[in-house]
């Protein structure tokens, strides 16, 4: 599970990139076991005990899982996908924004 997320984190370890999860499992303890088993190395907000009805996903208008938002260095929402956009697209988005940062010299 989540092989592309893991490879992204690895590939971009030395770049100004962060993968932040928002997890909607109801049981936080069970989730910690999954995290260990699947080697999930990125940090996640917990959506709370209401699971998919929790406050963060509700505020962000998330109705399907997964839903992805990509923010640039300014914190601006640049891309969004409900459902996975595919590994290729995901890489394109992130690489585009990283290049943008490099060319504007905002390292």
């Amino acid at each position, binding site marked *: 599970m989540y092989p592309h997320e893991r490879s992204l984190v690895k590939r971009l370890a030395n770049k100004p*990139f962060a993968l932040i999860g928002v997890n909607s*499992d109801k049981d936080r303890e069970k*989730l910690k076991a999954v995290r260990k088993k699947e080697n999930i190395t990125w*940090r996640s907000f917990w959506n709370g005990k209401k699971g998919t009805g929790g406050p963060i996903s509700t505020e962000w208008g998330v109705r399907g*899982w*997964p839903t992805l*938002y*990509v923010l640039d260095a300014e914190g601006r*929402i640049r891309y969004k996908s409900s459902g996975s956009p595919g590994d290729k697209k995901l890489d394109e988005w992130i690489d585009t924004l990283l290049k943008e940062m490099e060319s504007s010299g905002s390292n």
Partner: protein
Amino acid sequence: MKRLLLGLAVVLLVPLSLFAQDATTNTRTKKADQKKKSAFQKLNGEFQKAYSNLVSDFRKAKTDKKKNEIRKRIPKLNQEFAPKFLKAAEADPKSDVGFQCLSWVLQRQRSGKQFDRALDLIAKHHVTHKNIVRVTSGLLRSQSKKASKFLEAVMKKHPDKTVKGQISITLAAKLKRTAEMEGDLKLYAKAEKAYENAAAEYGSVRVPRSGTVAKASADALKDMRGPRALGKIAPEIEAEDLDGETFKLSEYRGKVVLIDFWGNW
């Protein structure tokens, strides 16, 4: 006198024979149609059987590995049957059975050779079919370039206002989705207009799940004009992580951030 009688007889007999031939053709067509109907039902029966076998295998599977392996077989099953349904449709694409077979392909695939071929045939023969929404509603997520063109063609040619109304929302939703996936603000503005126009022209038309075109449009526009719209600075998130420690989204300012709403169920 004899010639006249003969002539009359011929005149009388000819239409009778035509009528007889017509009746035979009608019976032949009905039988043929019934034969073809069985072709769809036959294929569908085969598919349903294979699918329920997969489901029961899944239920019996004891390990996650086995479950994942079975999950992967579902799209493979669809891919296995798509050419069969397509072949059955090509035998008589104009017929209702042809429509059923083509719909099957378009509801189970999102792109590819068979998808495009099925779309071409349905566009050619069934653009005004009373059940066309079965096909159009599923085209929101299709990556095929033909999908939007097809939707526009149905909107133009279909006589039913309900169909037009529902498609107007599908088209607007497609624009919004593409704009978000391409990071295209111009297209996003186009999508907004499309929702506005849909509500103006088809507001009272019923739409599954949202209620009416007006409501579906209002919901989408609220999202597109709200704080998490494309191009807006993301609002703050401040909450606990999986270990109970509180952290903030704004701590990551200055980095490219991928926010992944996920779950393990």
